[in-house]
């Protein structure tokens, strides 16, 4: 399976919530700088799989993984793998927009700040502006960067979360039904954004919606039926 263009390779991967096996010996490859969509019936393990890719499931007690997931050829489940560092390379956008209850600026600056990317305020402002532009939000918020992020509408909040994610320059972005809490107009703007992001990032998206999958021009549809 391992072709050189695969960003992520999943090999014989299983995942358990306690005794319940949510993913059964999964094998698949995710191609670099493309959008890969995961589609499948509710409860088949799409979200579980996505959260395995950045090891967010580690925060749930009693979970267990078997097999291997290679990112750039290195197993992310290797015992000596630094999970915090891993998550800096694999960003995640959640189903419900979850900006922090802080200013718009602080939301985007959060990642660069904690990673100590820069000390200078000027550079930080540049990163924030570039990230917001990258998330197609800059023009709407450039005059109100100090406003609380929760004052934005849901579509803007979701794009802010995308800006927050790309501010630390990950190589992969995971999105779990990122439009399911948005109205049709906001959905279109976020889909538009995803198409542009695919030029730079490897994107894995969970969606319920075949039309959406078609609209964003995805590369490969993996059947999510893991069981």
């Amino acid at each position, binding site marked *: 399976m391992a072709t050189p263009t695969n960003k992520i390779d999943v090999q014989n991967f299983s995942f358990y919530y306690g005794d319940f096996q949510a993913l059964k010996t999964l094998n698949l490859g995710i191609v670099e700088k493309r959008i890969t969509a995961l589609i499948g019936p509710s409860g088949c393990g799409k979200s579980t799989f996505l959260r395995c890719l950045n090891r*967010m499931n580690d925060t749930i007690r009693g979970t267990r993984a078997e097999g291997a997931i290679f990112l750039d050829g290195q197993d992310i489940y290797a015992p000596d793998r630094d999970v*915090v560092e891993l998550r800096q390379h694999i*960003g*995640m956008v959640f189903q419900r927009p*979850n900006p922090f*209850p802080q200013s718009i600026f602080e939301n985007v600056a959060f*990642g660069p*700040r*904690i990673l100590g990317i820069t000390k200078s305020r000027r550079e930080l402002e540049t990163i924030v502006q570039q990230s917001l532009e990258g998330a197609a939000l800059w023009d709407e918020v450039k005059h109100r960067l100090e406003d609380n992020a929760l*004052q934005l509408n849901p579509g803007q909040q979701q794009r802010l979360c995308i800006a927050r994610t790309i501010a630390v320059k990950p190589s992969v972005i995971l999105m779990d039904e990122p439009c399911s809490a948005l109205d049709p107009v906001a959905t279109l703007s976020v889909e538009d954004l995803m198409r542009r992001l695919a030029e730079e990032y490897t994107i894995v998206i969970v969606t319920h919606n075949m039309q959406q999958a078609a609209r964003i021009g995805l590369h490969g549809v993996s059947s999510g039926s893991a069981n």
Partner: protein
Amino acid sequence: MAVANEPASSPLATAPAPGRRWGEVIIESIIKIAGVSVIFIVGFIFLFLLWEGLPAILDIPLRQLFGPQWYPIEEHFGLLPLLFGSLLVTVVAVLIALPLGITTAIYLGEIAPPWLRDILKPIIEILAGIPSIVLGFLGWIALAPLIQTMGAPTGLTAFTGALILAYMALPTIISIAEDALYAVPREYRDGALAIGATQWQTIWRVVVPAARSGMLIAVMLGIGRAIGETMAVLMVTGNAANIPAFSENWLFSPVRTMTATIAAEMGEVAQGSTHYHVLYAIGLLLFLITLAINSLAARLIGVSGGRRSRPGGSL
């Protein structure tokens, strides 16, 4: 289907059922009466304090009232030593209780495994219910000798009182601050972790700020308990109504607080005497200080949490 439903359901929603209306009117007025009567009670307490305390303020020259000598028997009524005693004991108590309380709450809410939290939280809440006289007694027989062996001339000092007060404020601070942390939505934590924040960065930069209005309430209630506490402080601060000289070690000198003064002397004064009115004036002062702290807290909470749609510690 959904469209056809709407016109049918809207008249139903606006037509009130007569029986329910009356029930609602009664409940509403009961709630209204309860709310208004609380305001009236507080108002009457204030008027009463003013009525009884005002003669002292009018009788005694202001220079003496805010002077450094509290010798009631010689008709010297300077409130400064008492104000100083209250301030010293309270501030030191808060300085001890605040960092301890907040860090304990963070440990309980964010770091401790659930089973440990389930054991510790109820125990801490039980501690909040210990009567202050019991703690005062403990401070007197256990803590005071300890402090004396550390080199203070007497074990009954401002520091002893501050320790006991801090101990009393801690359960309140921990319990309410932990509730506020617990109320922070999981999505905030996930968002921070997914960017690559460590657990500590997540707690310190996202969870605690999101819970700040609840944390502030915890601190204010803790301070409120510390200021208002009488009996324990009466027993362990040494009850000397004087401001220690600058050369002395302030913390390890006996002091007396305003509350302790009222409690100790109210039983002995002649009703209507100047001394009697002064004690009420002290009560008035306490009332105003508490009022100031509470409105400050309300303002701070309004500034930090007012605009958020999902405040962390909505208490």
